[in-house]
């Protein structure tokens, strides 16, 4: 290929790249309007009416303080084995049966496993809700927690 032909090709490809970037710019607004499925599915206000009592308990009894809005923004918990954070709750449906979760809410997690056994005791732990919540309230809370699992999540890029 001659030098002149190569120069023309560089110009041509330059225009093609410019065109591609313009198309990308045109698509930009559309892409940014798309909401993140993982974020929307965990957003607290989007719960259906049936889950509202569970959300109310989650907020009023302070679960939200440590586990964060939508159970997905765990507070920092120094030296806790769970990534030094209060665990996220969005996958409890996969990790616990209903009975296990009832037991966990009733008994709490008084001792949080240390990341470094020689390190400090993690300051945050889960208290017992045995005397605070009725069976019905625990059921409502679990219904809400199960609803936090991201829907239609697309793993990978």
């Amino acid at each position, binding site marked *: 290929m001659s030098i002149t032909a190569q120069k023309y090709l560089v110009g041509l*490809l330059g225009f093609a790249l410019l065109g*591609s970037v313009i198309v990308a710019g045109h698509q930009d607004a559309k892409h940014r309007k798309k909401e993140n499925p993982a*974020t929307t599915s965990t957003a607290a206000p989007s719960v259906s009416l049936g889950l509202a009592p569970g959300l109310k308990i989650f907020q009023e009894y302070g679960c939200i303080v440590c586990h964060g809005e939508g159970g997905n923004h765990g507070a920092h918990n120094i030296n806790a084995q769970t990534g030094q954070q209060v665990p996220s709750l969005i996958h409890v449906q996969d990790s616990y049966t209903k009975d296990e979760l009832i037991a966990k809410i009733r008994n709490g997690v008084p001792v949080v496993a240390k990341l470094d056994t020689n390190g400090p005791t993690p300051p945050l732990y889960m208290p017992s809700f045995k005397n605070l919540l009725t069976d019905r309230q625990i059921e409502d809370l679990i219904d809400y927690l199960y609803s936090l699992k991201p829907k239609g999540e697309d*793993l990978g890029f």
Partner: protein
Amino acid sequence: MSQFRKWLQERVPIEVETLQKPFKEELPVHMKSWIFCLGGTPLILFCILAATGILLTFYYVPYPGQAYHSVANITYKVRMGWLIRGIHRGASHLMIIAVLLHMIRVFVTRAYRKPRELNWILGVALFLTTLTFAFTGYSLIYDQLSYWATTIGTNMIADVPLIGKPLLYLLRGGPNVNPNTLTRFYNFHILVLPAVIFLLIGAHLVFIRLHGVSKPEGDSRKETYPFFPDHVLRETIIGLFILIVLVNYVIYFPPTIGSPATPDATPTHIRPEWYFFPTYRWLQMTSLVVGIGGTQLFIIGMFLWPFIDAGLEKIAPNKNLGIIIGTAFFLLTLVFLVWESFIG
């Protein structure tokens, strides 16, 4: 202008001709073949990765509670963020492919032979650095897959003899994957590895300049052509072509993100990225000791290949044992890659 040049020359006492010299170098005519331009392709991709990487750091927050959301923010909220992230990701994959293709070309044409053995070793180091770049970069997304791929990937380091455990602790910043791991990987990804790759690329180029471009065996042509503008134009064409492919790929397949990393919920099916498939498949097929030991031997073999090949040539001259062994290993790697991609 001449006064300004004189002023500058007094303060920067380097002759203009000295600066122009690398651009005036004559290249052997076989370099006109596109396949011999593969060496410049990783450098082009590295520049694309550096530029997009810098832009991504404007919005990325390397802390577990925020890393995932900052990536989601880049992907769904930041103007053209999806494009920048998509190009960064695509270019990282292409970089691995480009380095591999370049290595295959060097291997097949046996351009690693005396006196270029050290440059081959630098090339292998560049390949491993590229893989480390990809691994640390993937871990920064902090979604479920990236978190668990990091956990499993770093677990393997523990089995490296002698230095495995301290190295694992150094990388993770603790016995398990924790917030320190993310900040360390971020540090490696944007500071340590760029410095390492910059030095390696520099040394690689210096060696090419010192020895001159190698000629394929049996090529007796004496003609040459200038580095500038001829070769620079060819590399520019490749660079523009890559950018067009990347932008259009991202337009049609924009990046997304999985659910946030949850340390206490292991996903049912964890796999590394495709470039680790051959190693992953090999480790699944063998016991841990054989798997790790075999991988380490393979890497050592890659580093020492010019000397191994020279030894094979002495043992059995003109039998092309090196090419046969290399091809066998390449095919085996390809089989593992395809196997893990479709069946694993």
